[in-house]
């Protein structure tokens, strides 16, 4: 049986296949080992991200964000050099989409510093600036992330589905019917990295990797029944979503543990973390535990007691969806 270090080296090497064969390649690599394959999730933290530990200054330090990103990606891929790590993660000759989340407004949206850091590393890895598309629902949500609209293909492109439009032909899976997908996803990106912001959600319980995909469809309001279950799982199971959204770099640098998805500063806190992984279900499970821990700390009831546990996470892991794992025994949580 391989020891833990050899297993991690091999598992990290599996990330080489992200750019070409994606999840199937990684799964096959892991299945070849005696140890049961486990989904890796990295939680990288920097207590001083928003200023000296114990304080908060609104926006994270850009240099520290870049460093945090590098540490997270190095831990995930096993490659210390950030450029080499990114070359292993993405097909550098393709169009890479970064799906941010600005719905919560300026107070609780994907941080500009994270987007800039990722764009910097992608370009250093060889992705042409115009082959990076930072996107969300519309201009307002993008601007909430501190970003400026740009459609000039000589630079990193930044725009919403209000510019690209949605497909005329709807697609469906399960309860997610008549879904019209953004053309940014279907026609303009070869691979998408999700950059959700960690939030409590009044209906779904938690919004992170999978719920971020509600910003990909024309009418997400039609997917909120029954606390967004099974709609979140069904939406992520639609082939264009499942197959193109290959990785999550989840923004947990600041978060709201109650009152989301909007901005309720009275529930704002600073986990100062990134949660990264390929397995969107495992990433969401990890995010959920983080929200619950904070709620317990602040005297709030569990999401179960509040009658809105994120049941879509278990649904996404079931036999009909098989989008990932929600069993902690089948996850490898790497905290750095």
């Amino acid at each position, binding site marked *: 049986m391989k020891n833990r270090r050899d297993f991690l080296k091999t598992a990290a090497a599996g990330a080489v296949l992200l750019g070409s064969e994606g999840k199937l390649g990684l799964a096959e690599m892991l299945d070849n080992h005696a140890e049961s394959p486990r989904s890796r999730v990295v939680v990288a933290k920097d207590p001083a991200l928003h200023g000296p530990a114990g304080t908060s200054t*609104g926006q994270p330090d850009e240099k520290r964000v870049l460093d945090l990103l590098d540490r997270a990606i190095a831990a995930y891929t096993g490659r210390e050099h950030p450029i080499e790590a990114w070359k292993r993660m993405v097909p550098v000759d393709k169009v890479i989409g970064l799906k941010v989340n600005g*719905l919560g407004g300026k107070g609780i949206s994907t941080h500009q510093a994270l987007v800039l850091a990722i764009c910097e590393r992608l370009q250093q890895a060889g992705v042409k600036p115009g082959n990076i598309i930072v996107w969300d629902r519309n201009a307002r949500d993008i601007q909430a992330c501190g970003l400026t609209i740009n459609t000039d293909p000589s630079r990193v492109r930044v725009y919403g589905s209000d510019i690209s439009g949605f497909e005329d032909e709807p697609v469906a899976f399960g309860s997610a019917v008549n879904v019209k997908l953004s053309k940014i996803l279907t026609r303009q990106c070869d691979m998408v990295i999700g950059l959700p912001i960690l939030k409590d959600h*009044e209906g*779904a319980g938690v919004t992170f990797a999978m719920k971020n995909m*509600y910003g990909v469809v024309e009418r997400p*309001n039609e997917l909120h029944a029954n606390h967004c279950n099974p709609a979140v799982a069904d939406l992520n199971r639609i082939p264009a979503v499942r197959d193109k959204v290959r990785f999550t770099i989840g923004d947990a640098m600041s978060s709201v543990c109650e009152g989301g*998805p909007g901005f309720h*500063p009275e529930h704002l806190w600073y986990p100062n973390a990134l949660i990264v992984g390929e397995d969107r279900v495992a990433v969401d499970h990890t995010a959920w535990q983080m929200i619950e821990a904070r709620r317990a700390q602040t005297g709030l009831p569990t999401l179960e007691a509040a009658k809105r546990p994120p049941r879509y996470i278990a649904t996404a892991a079931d036999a009909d969806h098989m989008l990932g794992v929600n069993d902690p025994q089948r996850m490898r949580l790497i905290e750095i």
Partner: protein
Amino acid sequence: MSLCPRNCRNNWIFAVVAVAMLCAAATGCRKAKVDPFPASDTVSGWQKTSDTRVYAAKDLWQYIDGGAEQYISAGVVTTSTSDYKFQGQLEAVVDVNTMGDAAGAGKILTAGQTTDAKAIQLGDAGIQYAQSIVFRKGPYLVRIVAYESTPTTPQALLALAHGVEAKL
């Protein structure tokens, strides 16, 4: 009596009634149309930095996604919102929710309060946090949120809130 005088009388009565109805309608529209957003410089230090956006209940999801459910359950009719800036630096957003009745406004006001909520004299009832104020006045539920917490934020928000309250 001839037909002409009766027709003339009927036409005259019809015209008077029509004019009266138009006046009533116009008056009613003016009364119902409330602009709660203070113009720039009417509240010291505050500039209105965006157009007012108005969402009907059925479209509220476009603004706050799943957060709309809570307001719809409480009977929201419309939500109007605008951005503001204090002394060129502190950014804030003002949301004015027109609820079906005062009870609906009360329901939202009391939801999700934390232990550091401070009761304030504003409208029919109000609470203040370090970075936000929520108050109700009749069927209106107003929420003002600053994107930054500074020593002057609470006082600045309170001034803006009074400015909004005065217009309701």
